[in-house]
């Protein structure tokens, strides 16, 4: 009897082991769909970006059937809203599924993915057809076709479904492993998705105004209010990207050199601070807006300085991780530590090169927040340079580097042309450094952003920034070549299908065993979410009330393209 029980429990374990493996494979397929969608979108977006550079440098004039502003809308939406979002939802699904292994259904995850995809395709068709040349900020009263707004809404709602799937998995873990800490990568995923839901409430509120208006059900729109709703969402959007990149910096990057997470408690604290402080800062995008009092702008300046704090913590933690691991390997001295790091591994080199760019991106961010300086650069090419050296630098390079680890881990295939992958991240770094330097410089000279031709019929003032536009086009071309290399490696890995001898995996670094466990209160993510909502209300109740109280005249919609 005892023997029989043993055999049957062994068989049971084997069966559940098989089911676990099947469940893991099903999860991997879902993540792969996210990652490849992001890859494809990056390719299209980069081609458009290069052509924009050519247009601004007066090398080409875009034809009327595919004009500059249509292409610019596509570039902004695909890069800022689609590429980043698909990669991050895929990354977090991976982080939660891998660190909380269980037999699970991926149905909810697929519903989320498909909703995002349908939304993206709907919005993209409208943009490419020329029915939504409103740029990725879609400022009213520029009026796009209702399908564009519907598509954008579906993209957001799809991410909510993905978030629900991740929350359910974390809740399952807390229920089953009573008292255990949420695994760090899953904690980061859940924390970021809570922040994201709070942030996207702004864009959903805006859509509730825009959709009926674009359908002709309402005659006019409160332009100031839609701008405020957009930027309530627009800045935490940036932190959504950054928290995705930080998740990789904290947990994946150290694993490439057998390092450890510097401090588990401080990492959780940094993420909770990002959750709390990402939202009550959005007015710093509206410093030059009429209809918003200077006092509210000042308040958001102060809170924006606050959101720099978790980034300072992150900078310390990442460099400490490098140094501690190097010391463990017996390496000392700044240059020796730098040389010791695995610069020939694209999973390390991508994020690490991104960190170098982010040092400058962070400085620029502090400049932009200091409104006396922002007045000089607002809506100039400086801003374009700033977000290319941030989202196009650390964020994109980190996602690309991680993709080189993710695709082999998800498919069991060897990375195709690893040397090309390595060359790719360095090429991107060089291209982005050239392009964003030129853009920052042009901005200081006053060159406006979002403009197809900045020569102003040969006006004297416009001549000063022409050469910077040529340099930006050169940098943009290098980046576009780099993206082509990335797509060759990413798709080549799947198509060439060379099975790895040992199944590759993307590892998460363990936490430093020296560190004491994090205070349990940090894991109460639901409560931190409520605090974050409270802070957002405190920061926005006044400005929104001001918008509504002032005689807000409604503006009729217009199609000016």
């Amino acid at each position, binding site marked *: 009897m005892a023997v029989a029980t043993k055999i049957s429990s062994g068989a049971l374990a084997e069966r559940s082991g098989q089911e676990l493996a099947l469940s893991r494979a099903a999860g991997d397929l879902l993540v792969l769909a996210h990652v490849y969608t992001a890859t494809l979108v990056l390719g299209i977006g980069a081609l458009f970006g290069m052509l924009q550079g050519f247009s601004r440098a007066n090398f080409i004039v875009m034809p009327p059937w595919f004009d500059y502003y249509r292409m610019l809308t596509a570039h902004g939406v695909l890069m800022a809203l689609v590429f980043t979002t698909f990669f991050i939802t895929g990354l977090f699904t991976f982080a939660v599924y891998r660190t909380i292994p269980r037999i699970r259904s991926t149905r909810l995850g697929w519903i989320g993915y498909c909703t995002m995809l349908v939304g993206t395709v709907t919005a993209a068709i409208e943009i490419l057809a020329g029915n939504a040349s409103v740029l990725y900020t879609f400022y009213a009263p520029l009026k796009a076709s209702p399908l564009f707004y519907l598509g954008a809404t579906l993209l957001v709602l799809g991410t909510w479904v993905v978030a629900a799937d991740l929350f359910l998995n974390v809740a399952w873990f807390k229920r089953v492993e009573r008292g255990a800490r949420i695994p760090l990568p899953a904690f980061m995923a859940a924390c970021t998705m809570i922040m994201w839901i709070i942030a996207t409430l702004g864009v959903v509120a805006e859509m509730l105004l825009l959709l009926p208006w674009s359908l002709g059900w309402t005659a006019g729109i409160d332009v100031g209010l839609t701008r405020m709703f957009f930027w309530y969402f627009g800045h935490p959007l940036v932190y959504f990207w950054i928290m995705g990149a930080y998740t990789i910096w904290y947990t994946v990057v150290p694993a490439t050199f057998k390092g450890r997470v510097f401090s588990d408690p401080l990492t959780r604290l940094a993420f909770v601070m990002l959750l709390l402080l990402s939202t009550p800062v959005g007015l710093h995008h509206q410093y030059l807006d009429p209809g918003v009092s200077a006092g509210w702008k000042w308040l958001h300046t102060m809170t924006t300085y606050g959101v720099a704090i978790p980034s300072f913590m992150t900078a310390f933690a990442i460099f400490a991780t490098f140094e501690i691991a190097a010391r463990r390997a017996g390496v000392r001295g700044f240059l020796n530590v730098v040389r010791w790091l695995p610069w020939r591994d694209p999973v390390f080199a991508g994020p690490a090169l991104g960190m170098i760019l982010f040092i400058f991106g962070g400085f620029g961010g502090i400049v932009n927040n200091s409104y006396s300086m922002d007045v000089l650069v607002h809506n100039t090419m400086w801003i374009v340079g700033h977000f290319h050296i941030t989202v196009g630098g650390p964020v994109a390079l980190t996602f690309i580097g991680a993709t080189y680890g993710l695709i082999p881990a998800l498919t069991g295939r060897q990375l195709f042309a690893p040397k090309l992958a390595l060359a790719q991240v360095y090429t991107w770094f060089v291209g982005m450094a050239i392009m964003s330097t030129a853009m920052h410089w042009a901005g200081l000279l006053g060159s406006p952003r979002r403009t197809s031709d900045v020569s102003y019929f040969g006006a004297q003032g416009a001549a000063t920034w022409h050469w910077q536009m040529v340099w930006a086009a050169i940098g943009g071309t290098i980046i576009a070549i780099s993206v082509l290399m990335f797509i060759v490696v990413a798709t080549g890995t799947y198509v060439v299908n060379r099975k790895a001898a040992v199944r590759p995996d993307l590892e998460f670094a363990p936490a430093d065993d020296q560190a004491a466990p994090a205070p349990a209160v940090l894991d109460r993510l639901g409560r931190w979410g409520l605090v974050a909502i409270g802070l957002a209300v405190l920061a926005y109740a006044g400005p929104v009330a001001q918008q509504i109280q002032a005689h807000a*005249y409604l503006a009729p919609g217009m199609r000016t393209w």
Partner: protein
Amino acid sequence: MHVHPQERLWMTVGLGILVLFAAIITTSAIVDGFVPPSRVQSIDPTKVAQTPPFDHPGLRKIADGAYEAYYVARIFSFAPAEIRVPAGSRVTFYVTSADVEHGFSIPATGVNTMVTPGWVSSVSHTFKDRGTFLLVCNEYCGAGHHTMAAKVTVE
């Protein structure tokens, strides 16, 4: 929670810098009155052409060396297309939009503001140097956005 002494030092210095920046911004706001253009005055964007003073956009002399300039931004031009002021003049610009969102920027000066339909924007600047300044729309407003420019001549 254990915090490494070196991290404590790093965070103290970092926080110190942020506090310094915040103090500079706050002081310049209180002492010099330096705040970004933040006028809160609404206007019906569909009736700009009938609403004084925007029914007659242009330059008004207030006193010696002090001017007010009323601008209407509409796709894809500014009215007035050119103003002329003597060097050393302080000009206060009042701008509103008759249609969509626009920008109002004179590169190489501190003149820069959004122009939002439904609101009046205001920004002041003292023009010390002679020359012809380019005034551009720096917010996308439609197919002809890159042609939307005007001139400020300082004599």
